[in-house]
Each structure stands twice: as structure tokens, then as C-alpha cells.
């Protein structure tokens, strides 16, 4: 299997059941998707589970991808949805609490600017599951609160308070770095 194949050619080979093509597709995107999985979990083990389930879904549903958009974007959506499923399987209820938006100081922004991706990932992983999921969906994936609410089975206001709480928790963690 040549590495010079286009995404479309790799996908077509995968659809024929070519194991080498499946492995090539996996190798091409696995590291990026693993980082997505890690963002939604606190443990590497859970992330590996999501990675496996996600790729099995990808291979089983490849025929549905019509090359009308970014293949990587389609993949990412599957992994995010798999992570949401994983979250919903474990947490069925989210507490709607009062929360206010935090005040972020310029000094904290300066600390954040110096952090590497690995450090940012650790911060996100240290969030409680509900905060982490909403933060990921809102900030990284760009979902709106209505969409998050529908995906997680919560109210919009709960999504907002979870986001506020997530920022507040991250801020506390950043302060400790200082």
C-alpha cells in the first residue's frame, strides 16, 4: 500500500476490505484522533477504549462518507460523538448549579500562553467529567449551548454553568502553576 494514495483512494480500498488500507488510514489519523479522545477523558485507558470504538465505527460507516467535506472533519465528528456516548454511558445526570463567569486576569493569560499542548491537555483532563465535556464541545469543537444541551441531554442553562465552572476550575489550576 503506497503512502502516496489520496484519502479517497485509501477509503475506496478500505471499502473493499483491504486490511493494509485500513491500517494506512489508521496510521494517518490515529495520533490526532487519540488526542481528541484524551481530551474527553481523565485516563489513558478510557481514551484507548474510545479510540478503538471510534475507529471500528469509522470502518463500519466509511461507505457513508461522500467526500463532500473534509474527511478529517468527518472522522473528528465520529470520535467526538463516540466520546459523548462514552460520557453519557457513565454520567446520566448533570447538576444545574448557580455559577458566574470568572474574571480572567492578564497574568493568567500570560501563563496560559507559555503552556504547551501537553500541559493544556493535562489541565483539561483534570476537569470533572461534566465540565470537561462541555468545555471541549464549546471551546474546542465550537458547538453552541443548544447543541451541547441536545447532545448531552441537559438544559442550555446547565451547559452554560458547566462551562463557567470549567473555566473557573482551569483558572484555579493555572494559578497553581504560577
Amino acid at each position, binding site marked *: 500500500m503506497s503512502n502516496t494514495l489520496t484519502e479517497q483512494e485509501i477509503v475506496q480500498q478500505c471499502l473493499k476490505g483491504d486490511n493494509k488500507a485500513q491500517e494506512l488510514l489508521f496510521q494517518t489519523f*490515529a495520533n490526532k484522533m487519540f488526542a481528541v479522545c484524551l481530551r474527553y477523558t481523565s485516563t489513558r485507558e478510557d481514551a484507548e477504549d474510545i479510540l478503538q470504538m471510534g475507529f471500528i465505527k469509522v470502518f463500519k460507516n466509511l461507505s457513508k462518507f461522500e467526500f463532500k467535506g473534509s474527511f478529517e472533519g468527518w472522522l473528528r465528528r465520529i470520535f467526538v460523538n463516540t466520546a459523548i456516548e462514552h460520557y453519557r454511558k457513565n454520567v446520566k445526570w448533570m447538576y444545574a448549579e448557580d455559577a458566574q463567569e470568572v474574571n*480572567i486576569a*492578564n497574568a493568567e493569560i500570560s501563563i496560559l500562553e507559555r503552556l504547551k499542548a501537553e500541559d493544556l491537555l493535562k489541565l483539561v483532563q483534570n476537569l470533572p467529567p461534566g465540565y470537561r465535556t462541555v468545555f471541549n464541545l464549546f471551546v*474546542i469543537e465550537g458547538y453552541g449551548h443548544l447543541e451541547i444541551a441536545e447532545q448531552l441531554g441537559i438544559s442550555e442553562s446547565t451547559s452554560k454553568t458547566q462551562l463557567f465552572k470549567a473555566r473557573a476550575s482551569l483558572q484555579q489550576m493555572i494559578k497553581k502553576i504560577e
Partner: protein
Amino acid sequence: MSNKNNISQFDNLFKEGLSGHSVPTPSGAFQGISQGLSIGSVAGSAAVGIKLLVGSIVAVTIATTAYFAINTDAKKNDAQIAVEQTNNVISNIATNKENAVTVLEQPQPTEKIQNKVNVVIDGTAKSASVKNNALLNTFSLNEVTTEDKKIIEITPKTAVLEAETSKSIIYPIFSIINIAGNACPYSKAIFNVYPANNAVAWFINDEKVATNTSNCAYVFNQKGYYKIECYSNKTKIADTFIEIGMAKASINYIDMGEGLTEAKADVSGIKSLVWMINGQLVSEVNGFVYNANHYKNEPYLITTDYRGCKDTFYKNSAKTNSSAYFILGKENTITPNGDGLNDEYEFEIAGQTFFSMAVYDKNEQIIYNTTNPKAYWNGIDFRTQKVAENGVYNIVFTYKLVGENENNFKYVRINLLK
């Protein structure tokens, strides 16, 4: 800078930092996915051979996924077809017992059984009936007509059977069709085999519990994993499995600050749960948040499994409450030098309905594999029959526990030091 701008920048720094981030995946990950794909898609992968005789089809009413094995005329062709039925039970295939049902035009090894299987009854046969439409989804019966009552008339093919009659073997077709009563500890369950056969002996976990009866009543005295088998004339005609006490739960408490604690449980095998504090029901949902300052005691969980059995879980009480589990070994280094210390990689599994283990070397070649759940890896490379070279090896476990619908995959990276 305004706070709004700072929050926007705060979010953007996370987004920019993490959006394109990549992390190396564990080696061996693809093998697990590849195995998962192949197991999920080729229910009939064991199918080989040319000619079958329908016999001893076992329908399992308990497991969510049941495998139906069709035995073959071993003298002519060693063949086996596994037909996967999810949540469908073939309740009965009744035939005139004096007649053999012969399956011709065996599907190719990679085909599933629904792809054209001709069924023929020998010259003395008058009829055969299939009382469950599920079977029609997997068998394409040739020369049949269906009626409203789902009775299938199979026209004898005398010409074909002249050649086949001498090889025909008569297998009554049995299935365990019912388990009545609550399947809980100390509750009595009744098993029936169908069609009724008073020559049946019943075994539970290899212990003979009844003879000469088509019905068997049994009290499960404790939680556990039970294998139920029935034999007629020393030949196993049906079997199934049941786990008493399916619920698993692991409780965690998460400090949410401001006096609030979230009690959350990783659960499986349950139908419903309630959180209790001091004997009072406080929540019927997982992820229960409470004010710890208001209570002296921590919440605990009462679960109800799919058979109506209740279990109580406290923090750190999970593993001992289930008889179906998989636990990776504690040591990730093996030293197979025969000194009795870490000579092999051990793991624990119980209550499994499927298991396979494969050891991969650094070139991602399988050097050892097994489907024996009691096996362990002692460093042997089965290609050379010698202990493999020092280095890192990946073990991929694929398994399914009782009550689970899908396979689980686990990896472990093992250092081998001679």
C-alpha cells in the same frame, strides 16, 4: 483589556493549543481494531465444508447473542456453520423424527448461511415446520412455500436423497426454551427442553442435578456464573449460561467544591439504580450531587439487574460483587527463567462468553495466540517453541462477558527479560 476579551483569549489559547494536537497511539492498537472488525462481521467465519446434516441446534433464551451451531457429517466433511442471531430465538424446528434433514449446496467459507442453502428431506418425509420467522432470515429454503402460520412444506427430492439417505443421521433438535421464575440467589428457576424428552439429564456447573425429565427445577443458592446443560443418551443436546447477580458498580465521590459532592458510579448489567443515604432514597439518577455537610454518612447504591435482582454497593465494593470480570495482570514485566517469579503474564477472566488473546512482537507479528481463558503467556514464541527475545511485546485481549452485547478490547505492553 476587558474581562470579555480575556475570556475569549483564554478559550482561544486552549483551542489553538489543542485543535491540531496529536498523541502517539499505543502500539498494537490497530490489531485490536482489526480483530474487532473481523469478529463483528464474519459470524460464519468458521464455515467450511460441503455438506451438512442439521442437528442439535441449541437455542439460548438467556444470552442476548446466541450462536447456533450446525453439526456435520464428520466422516465426509468437517464443517461447521455459526449463525449469529441477536435477540432472536429459534424456538423450534420440528421434523418428523424418522427423517433426516440434509443441507446441500453448502455456502462458501466466507459466506453467511443466508446465502442460498438448499434443504431437502429424504424420501419418506412428509413435512417440516419452522415456527419462528427468525430462521427464515438466515435460511433460504429451496422449494418451500410459506403460509400465514409460518408452516413450511418441504417437497421431498427423492432423486437427490437416493444418494444421500445412507449418510443421513437423525438428530432431534432441542432447545432450552424457557427459564421461569426469578433468576436471583435463593430463587427457584425452572428449565424446559423442547421438544420434551424424558430421557434428558440436567447438569449445572458440571454437577448432575436431575435425570429423566424434560423439566428441571433448580435453586441458585448464590451469585455466580452457571452453565446449564442437558444430555440425552450421554450426548449433549442443549446448553446455555446464566449469571446470577449481573450488576457491577464502582462508586466514586467527586468533590465539586462549596460543600458539594458528586456521587457517581460506573455501572453495568443493571436496569435501574437508586442512591440511598441513611436508608432514605435520595436520587434515582447516576451522578447524584449532594451537600456532604448535611449528611453524616456517604450515599450508597442499590441496583436492580435485568432479572429483577437487587444488589447494594458501597464505595470500593465493586469487584467482589460480580462473577463476570476481566482483570489485567499487575506485573508488566515477565522474566521466564523458571525461578517461579514473574515467569508468565497472568490475568483473570470469569463469566466470559468469548475470549481470545494474541501476543504481538515489535514487528506486529503474532507470536502467540489462544482462545483458552485459562491460558497465560510464558514468553514462548510458538513459531520457534522457544522463549522470545528480550523486548517489548503487546498483548491484545478480546472478550465478551455474560450480559454484554459487544466485545471488549484490552491492550497491555509487556517487557520480557530473560
